[in-house]
C-alpha cells in the first residue's frame, strides 16, 4: 500500500516535469467523483420476527477516480485512473484505499493502424462477445438512474462491452471500386491470470474483418477463441471455445423508411483437451439469426428470427452480469436461522457487489424467477423463435414509446420430449408532460410493463406454467431549476412452477430441481435530485423495500432505506 502511494506520488510528480520539458507533450486530467451513503432498517413484521439480525445497518464512502492523460506526442496517449476511496467511519486513513483502476496506452501507427494496450473495452456480436444487460433492467424508469449509474460504473459496464486487459489493434482501408472499404480489428486478452495450484491461465483471441461493398452490402467475419494455456497449470485438461459469426448486412431506403437486413450465421465448439491432444469432452452448436429493421423519422421497428443450438457455447456472449453465487451487501444473512439471503430484485437494482466482471467458461447460474426466457441473452442455447421491437417518438419527442414481443420454443426438450414455449413482452411509455400541457415545470412520467411466461405440456410432472410481471413507474417533477422531486416504483411478481436444470462441470444436464414460485417484491422510492449537469448530480431518497416469497415461511424481508449519492462524471 505504502509502496503504491509512493509510486503514485512519484508518477504524479514526474509527469508534469516531463511535460514541461517538451513543448509538444501534454498532460490533462479528468475524473469522476462519488459520495454514497445508505442506511437500511428492518421494518414491518420482520422486525419482530427476526431477533438475530441487527435492527439497522448501512455504509458509505467517498471515492475520487482521478484520470490522467499523458500525450508525449500526437500519436500516443497514456491513460491511468487512480481511485482514492475513503469508507465512512474510519480515521487517519485506516479505511482509505488507493487503487489503480485503469491503465492503458493507445496510439496510432503511421496514421493507419491504431492500437490499445492495457485496459480496454471489447464487444463483437451478440453471439461472440457481448455483455448483455442484466435481468429486470428493461425499461427501467430514469428515476432509478442513481443506482444504475453506480452499478454500471463500479462494474465497468459500458453499453454492452466487456472490460478486459490485453492488446487491441485495428485499421481500415478505403477503396474506390466495388469494395468501398475494408476494416479489421484484432485483440488478444488475458481473461484469467495464473493461479498458484489453481486453474490454468485463460486467454481470449479474436478479430473482426468487415468488407463494405458499394451497393450497401457488407460482409463481416467475427471470430473469438477463449482457451486455457496447458503449460500454465498442473491441470490435466484445458478448455477451448472458438466461436465464429459471419454477418451479412444490406441497407436500402424506400420512401421515408430505411430498411436494414442482416443475417448472422455461425457456430461454436467447446471442449477440454488433454496434454496428449485427446479430447475429454467436446460439443458443437450452430446459430442463425435473420433480422429486418425499418427506421423512419418517428418509428424504428424490427422483426427477427433466431435459432440457437442447444450445444452452442460462447464464453464471450453467455457470461452473465448477475452472479447469484454471491452475498448481497445489505442484510446478507437474515432470519433467526441466519441464512444467506438470495439475490433479489432489490440487489439487482441497487447493489453493485453482486455483479460479475469476468467471462465464465461455463454457463453461470441464474434464477428462473427473474430470467426465464433468455437467461443468456440472445445467445441463450436451445431456443428457436421470433422477436419484434417497436419504438415510437412523436415530433416534439414528448411521447416516447417502446414495445417488444418475443416468442421462443425449445429445440430439444429438457428431461422430456415436451418442449417449453417461452413468451416475453414489454411496453414502455415516457411522457414529457410539460411539453404536452401548459405545465411549465419539467415533468416526466414513465411507466413500463415487462412480462415473461413459460409453458410446457405433458403429464403433471412435465407440465410447466410460469408467469412473471415487472411493473415500473417513475415521476420526475422539477420543483425549481435543476432540482427535481422524484418518485418511482418497481414491482415484481412471479408465480407458477418451473423445472431448474442442474448441470455438471461440462454444462451437461444431470438433474433437475422442481421449483415453485409465488413471490412478490417491491421497491418504492421518493426523493430529491439536483442536477448540476446530466452527469453531475446528487440524489437523496428514501426507499421502501418489500420481499415476500409465499412459498417459504421465512423468506420475507421488509426494509426502509435512506440513500444519498453524489455523482460526478467528467
Amino acid at each position, binding site marked *: 500500500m505504502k509502496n503504491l502511494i509512493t509510486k503514485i506520488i512519484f508518477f504524479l510528480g514526474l509527469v508534469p516535469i516531463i511535460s514541461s520539458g517538451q513543448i509538444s507533450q501534454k498532460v490533462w486530467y479528468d475524473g469522476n467523483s462519488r459520495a454514497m451513503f445508505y442506511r437500511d432498517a428492518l421494518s414491518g413484521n420482520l422486525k419482530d420476527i427476526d431477533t438475530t439480525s441487527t435492527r439497522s445497518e448501512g455504509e458509505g464512502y467517498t471515492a475520487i477516480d482521478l484520470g490522467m492523460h499523458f500525450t508525449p506526442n500526437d500519436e500516443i496517449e497514456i491513460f491511468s485512473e487512480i481511485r482514492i476511496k475513503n469508507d465512512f467511519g474510519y480515521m487517519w486513513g485506516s479505511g482509505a484505499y488507493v487503487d489503480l483502476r485503469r491503465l492503458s496506452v493507445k496510439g496510432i501507427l503511421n496514421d493507419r493502424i491504431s492500437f490499445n494496450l492495457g485496459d480496454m473495452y471489447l464487444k463483437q456480436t451478440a453471439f461472440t462477445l457481448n455483455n448483455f444487460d442484466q435481468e429486470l433492467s428493461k425499461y427501467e424508469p430514469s428515476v432509478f438512474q442513481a443506482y444504475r449509474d453506480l452499478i454500471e460504473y463500479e462494474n465497468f459496464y459500458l453499453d454492452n462491452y466487456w472490460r478486459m486487459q490485453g492488446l487491441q489493434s485495428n485499421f481500415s482501408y478505403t477503396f474506390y471500386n466495388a469494395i468501398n472499404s475494408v476494416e479489421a480489428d484484432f485483440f488478444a486478452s488475458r481473461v484469467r491470470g495464473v493461479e498458484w495450484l489453481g486453474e490454468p491461465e485463460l486467454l481470449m483471441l479474436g478479430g473482426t474483418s468487415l468488407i463494405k461493398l458499394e451497393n450497401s452490402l457488407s460482409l463481416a467475419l467475427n471470430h473469438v477463441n477463449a482457451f486455457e494455456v496447458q503449460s500454465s497449470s498442473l491441470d490435466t485438461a484445458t478448455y477451448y471455445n472458438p466461436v465464429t459469426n459471419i454477418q451479412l448486412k444490406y441497407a436500402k431506403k424506400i420512401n421515408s423508411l430505411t430498411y436494414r437486413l442482416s*443475417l448472422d450465421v455461425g457456430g461454436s465448439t467447446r471442449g477440454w483437451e488433454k496434454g496428449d491432444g485427446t479430447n475429454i469432452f467436446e460439443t458443437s452448436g*450452430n446459430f442463425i439469426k*435473420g433480422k429486418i429493421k425499418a427506421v423512419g423519422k418517428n418509428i424504428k421497428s424490427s422483426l427477427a428470427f433466431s435459432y440457437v443450438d442447444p450445444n452452442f457455447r460462447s464464453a464471450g456472449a453467455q457470461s452473465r452480469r448477475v452472479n447469484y453465487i454471491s452475498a448481497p451487501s445489505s442484510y446478507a444473512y437474515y432470519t433467526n436461522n441466519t441464512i444467506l439471503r438470495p439475490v433479489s430484485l432489490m440487489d439487482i437494482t441497487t447493489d453493485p457487489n453482486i455483479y460479475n466482471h469476468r467471462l465464465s467458461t461455463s454457463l453461470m447460474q441464474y434464477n428462473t424467477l427473474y430470467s426465464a426466457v433468455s437467461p443468456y441473452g440472445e445467445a441463450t442455447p436451445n431456443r428457436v423463435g421470433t422477436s419484434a421491437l417497436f419504438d415510437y417518438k412523436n415530433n416534439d419527442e414528448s411521447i416516447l414509446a417502446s414495445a417488444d414481443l418475443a416468442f421462443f420454443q425449445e429445440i430439444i426438450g429438457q428431461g*422430456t420430449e415436451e418442449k417449453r414455449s417461452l413468451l416475453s413482452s414489454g411496453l414502455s411509455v415516457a411522457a414529457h408532460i410539460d411539453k404536452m400541457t401548459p405545465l411549465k415545470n419539467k415533468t416526466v412520467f414513465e411507466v413500463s410493463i415487462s412480462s415473461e411466461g413459460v409453458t410446457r405440456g405433458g403429464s403433471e*410432472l412435465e407440465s410447466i406454467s410460469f408467469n412473471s410481471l415487472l411493473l415500473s413507474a417513475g415521476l420526475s417533477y422539477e420543483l425549481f431549476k435543476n432540482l427535481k422531486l422524484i418518485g418511482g416504483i418497481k414491482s415484481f411478481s412471479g408465480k407458477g412452477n418451473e423445472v431448474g436444470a442442474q448441470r455438471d462441470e461440462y454444462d451437461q444436464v444431470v438433474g433437475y430441481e422442481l421449483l415453485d414460485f409465488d413471490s412478490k417484491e417491491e421497491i418504492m422510492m421518493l426523493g430529491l435530485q439536483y442536477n448540476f449537469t446530466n452527469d453531475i448530480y446528487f440524489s437523496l431518497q428514501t426507499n421502501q423495500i418489500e420481499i415476500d416469497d409465499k412459498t417459504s415461511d421465512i423468506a420475507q424481508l421488509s426494509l426502509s432505506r435512506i440513500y444519498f449519492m453524489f455523482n460526478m462524471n467528467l
Partner: protein
Amino acid sequence: MKKLSYLFLTITLIFISCDKEGIEGPSLNDLFGELNILEDFAIINDSATFNNESAYFTAKFSKIVDWKISIIGQSSGAEKIILGKSNEINATNSLWSGEVTTLPFFKEENCSVLLTFPNHSDSIYGTFKINEAKTYGNGSELVVSDFENGFNPNFTNFFQSTCLKKIETGDAGQSDRYLVQEGTCDWDWLIGYIDYPASHWFDQGVLNANPDNVYFNMMINGDSTLSPTNEANSLFKLEFYEDENQDGYYDQNTEDRLEVEFDVDWNGWKMVSIKYSDLILAWNSGGNAIREPNKILKIRTLLLANPESGFAKADVDYIVWSEGSAILNQ
C-alpha cells in the same frame, strides 16, 4: 432487395425447421415419476439344477429405476444379490447361474426372492427352488480340506492352552462342517496354527507352475461382535513353504517362504482368494525368490491377536486351490 429477402427467409427457415431428436438430460419421469409395475415380476424357471441350468427374472416398470433382487437360501442363509438400473428386468441383466454373493454356499433348498427398489418403498416377493447347488471350479481345483470328514490328524498344529480348535456342524461356509478356531491369549500374539502338508492335495493332481495362474482360496468366518471392544481383533497369516530342491524338507537358508497377512474385520463367512504371484517373500527367505506353486511343501495358517485386546476368532472352511481365477468366479 427482394432476392436477398428470400435468401434470408429461406436460410432462416431451414435452420428453424431443424428439430433435435431425443431429450436433453435425464428423463424427468425417471427422476421424479411415480413407479408403476407395468409387467409383474416373474421368475423364469422357478427351480434349477445349477450344474447345467440357470434362471432369470422379468419385470417392466414405468421408469428407469435402481432395482435389487435378493435371493436368500432358506436353509443355508446364503445370499445372491443382483443389482440393476433399467425399466426392464430380463435375461440380459438378471441371469443367475447359482453363484453366491454372501457366503455360505447355497444348498439344495428353497429360496426367498425379493425385488426391492432402493429409492422406493415397493417390494415384490417370490420363491425359487434349487434342485442342485452350483459347484465351483473348472475341474483343475485341488481341495486342501473342507472338514466334512473331521480334522485330519496329519495336519500338525498348535493352539495355546486357553484357545481351541474344533470341528463344528451346522452354519458351515460350505456343506455342513467347518473348523472353529478361537480363544483368548493374554501372554502371546499366537492363538494357534495349523500346517497343511502338500501331500494332501498333490495326490489329487498338480498345480500349475505359473504363479499368475494359481489362486489359494479359503473361507474364513469372522465375528467381531465377540470381541470385548466390538472391533476386529483377529489377524490371519498364511505362510507357504516351498521345497525348491524337492528333498521333502524346507530349509530357510536355501528355500523360499511366501506369506500374507490381513485383519479378519468382517462378520460371517467370506471367501479369501489370493493369487500366488501376489504373495510376499518372507524377510528371511533364502531361496531363488521365484514363486513356484508346484513346489509347495506345506501351508501354515496362523491365527494371531493382540494379547491386550482379548478374544479372537477366525473359523475356516473349504480350503482349495484353483487355476485361472478365484474359485468364486468359476
